[in-house]
């Protein structure tokens, strides 16, 4: 059936895979009609998809350095775009984003703008140049461009801090979904999630991660879009929700005006289970100051351009030109999901609060709501709660509480879709969290094995030994991440945002100026990375411990302080010390020419 090289057959391979997955969904739908239990369907969905990723991971095993680190640099443009999109869209994007929009409205949308706008910076400032450079990891670029182990080591430090903050959140999300779908305790589920993540990356490194991420993207995008289109059609809101929900958005605003946002007393709120929130902010109107919106967007954009697990995806394309185009495809595939999240939030909110709809619960009697099946299910899962604060027996807008995850997880059930869709959504969430965790664990392990072990500790190590070290580190880092995730210290979304701020504080300017400013030297870069990271961390602690914020910068936007310190110290120190030597300057010139050999050799 399939002849010739795997790479030449990609459209065919993934076409068959997509068809097979759709067939599996239909099979499950038939099974549901035949009376198979909801729990069995949920388990089948997660087990089937994770099993496929594991098979892909096994088939992509490799013993070559450039296949392990950069997938042999032969990933075609569009497929690399899909892999990047899966790498990028985390469990938080999949499970929590629509919930964030649902509760916080306009102010939260700064994240959408930031997480997409950052790709313009990636495409124009960095990706093509780093691809031309031919590095294996981000610290590889810093270390070679600026020269010296100190610069390389500082980059490894920033990368590890940022990625590790991020990866614990992803393993946490994998555990949450696995525990719900497989019905096992969270502490166990975290390690089940970890095992699935390692199965995809351990044997084949970047090559295995690339091909599983493409498979994961296909699952997660189907799982996100299908329910939204279905619900929109079922509610009669329009067959193409993105272009047709204006009336629904206006109706929500009208209902908000009618109900008003009643503030609950502290005593009443204390009875609401932890993690649940009520609707307290307008759905569509502008509810944040320009600075609050813009500062958050800026941090997410600069963070996007500095996070190593995204950047290293563009090291895998065949050419500089395809690296550039690949960024466009990545953003296109991300756009498909991001533009759908606000539509899901709108449909979810309207179906719950509109008294004219059969699913609407506001205005019904509390006893009636408590008798609804789905309410009981999600109340038990600790994601929904109602309470009659004013004692009038009727549910008011301010008496209804929900967890952020419920918007994605519960809306299909509320809208009356068959359970097979909920199973699909669980598989999609798992795919999203796993693909991001894989990319991050690999980014950290590769930086430690290539930059710390091979380049600094043992430059004479043989290929086999290097790859063993890389795999051992991968497992260790995975376990460390899972152990911290099992402690459940922070929420998923909070730690994701911190990761962007850390990355931006330490890496944004050293990376950008490495390409765009020839005069930047090692001393400047080290100062920029270390002082930037230190300043950002200091400010985070300062705000967390009750210090007065500077310029309205919050704990979510501390990257602004960090990167400013980074920029200033990098420029000042660079100018105070000697200019880079002629060889380095020639190297920068070489990086700026898209054609010709890479600066670093094919295998290094």
């Amino acid at each position, binding site marked *: 059936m399939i002849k010739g090289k795997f790479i030449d057959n990609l459209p065919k391979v993934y076409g068959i895979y997509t068809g097979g997955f759709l067939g599996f969904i239909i099979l499950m739908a038939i099974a549901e009609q035949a009376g198979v239990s909801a729990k069995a369907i949920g388990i089948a969905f997660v087990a089937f998809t994770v099993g496929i990723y594991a098979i892909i991971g096994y088939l992509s095993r490799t013993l070559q350095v450039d296949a392990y680190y950069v997938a042999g640099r032969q990933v075609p443009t569009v497929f690399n775009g899909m892999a990047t999109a899966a790498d990028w869209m985390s469990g938080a994007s999949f499970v929590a984003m629509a919930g964030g929009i649902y509760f916080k409205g306009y102010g939260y949308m700064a994240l959408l703008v930031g997480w*997409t706008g950052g790709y313009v*910076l990636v495409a124009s400032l960095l990706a093509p140049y780093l691809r031309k450079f031919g590095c294996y990891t981000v610290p590889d670029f810093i270390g070679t461009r600026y020269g010296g182990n100190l610069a390389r080591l500082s980059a490894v430090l920033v990368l590890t801090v940022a990625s590790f903050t991020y990866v614990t959140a992803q393993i946490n999300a994998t555990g949450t979904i696995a525990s719900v779908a497989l019905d096992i305790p969270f502490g166990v589920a975290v390690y089940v999630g970890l095992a699935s993540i390692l199965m995809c990356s351990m044997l084949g490194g970047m090559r295995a991660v690339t091909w599983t991420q493409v498979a994961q993207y296909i699952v997660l995008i189907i799982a996100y879009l299908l329910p939204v289109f279905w619900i929109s059609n079922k509610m009669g809101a329009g067959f193409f929700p993105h272009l047709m*929900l204006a009336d629904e958005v*206006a109706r929500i605003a009208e209902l908000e005006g009618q109900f008003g946002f009643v503030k609950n007393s502290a005593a009443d709120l204390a009875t609401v289970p932890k993690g649940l929130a009520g609707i307290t902010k307008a759905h569509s109107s502008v509810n944040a100051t320009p600075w609050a919106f813009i500062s958050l967007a800026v941090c997410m954009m600069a963070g996007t351009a500095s996070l190593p697990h995204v950047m290293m995806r563009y090291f895998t394309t065949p050419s500089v030109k395809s690296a*550039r185009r690949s960024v*466009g495809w990545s953003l296109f595939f991300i*756009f498909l999901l*991001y533009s759908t999240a606000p*539509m899901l939030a709108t449909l979810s909110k309207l179906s719950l609060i509109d008294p004219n709809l059969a699913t609407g619960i506001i205005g019904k009697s509390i006893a009636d709501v408590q008798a609804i099946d789905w309410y009981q299910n999600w109340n038990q899962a600790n994601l929904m709660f109602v309470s009659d604060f004013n004692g009038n027996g009727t549910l008011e807008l301010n008496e209804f509480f929900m967890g952020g995850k419920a918007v994605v997880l519960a809306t299909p059930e509320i809208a009356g879709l068959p359970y097979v869709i909920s199973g699909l959504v669980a598989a999609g969430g798992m795919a999203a969290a796993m693909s991001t965790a894989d990319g991050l664990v690999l980014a950290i392990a590769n930086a430690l094995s290539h930059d710390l072990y091979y380049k600094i500790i043992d430059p004479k190590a043989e290929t086999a030994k290097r790859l063993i070290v890389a795999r051992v580190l991968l497992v260790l880092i995975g376990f460390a991440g899972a152990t911290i995730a099992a402690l459940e210290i922070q929420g998923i979304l909070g730690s994701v945002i911190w990761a962007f701020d850390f990355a931006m504080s330490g890496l944004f300017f050293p990376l950008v100026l490495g390409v765009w400013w020839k005069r930047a030297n090692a001393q400047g870069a080290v100062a920029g990375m270390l002082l930037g990271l230190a300043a950002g961390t200091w400010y985070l602690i300062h705000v967390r411990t009750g210090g007065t914020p500077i310029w309205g910068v919050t704990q979510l936007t501390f990257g602004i302080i960090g990167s400013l310190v980074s920029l200033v110290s990098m420029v000042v120190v660079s100018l105070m010390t000697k200019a880079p030597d002629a060889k380095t300057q020639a190297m920068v010139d070489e990086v700026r020419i898209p054609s010709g050999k890479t600066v670093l050799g094919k295998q290094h």
Partner: protein
Amino acid sequence: MSKQSQHWEKTRGLLFVTLAIWFVFSIGIFFFGAEMEASSFRPFGYPLSYYMTCQGSLGIFVILIFWFAGRQEKIDEEFGYTEREDD
């Protein structure tokens, strides 16, 4: 001026144009959130501020990157820096 520095000058020019457009749609317009909301220009019937955060700016970024990539390829071609291997 050498071929290489001319190429870099053009590349830098393209970067500034790209970043200017990026700035307008990622930062610039959000200084005017309230004005956008009040605007009578409502794409597909959505308030303009809501539309830009949901789809508008996001879609413009996608188009901008492809446009940028195309222009940069033209510049590279002009100076004979086109890569041989193609995808």
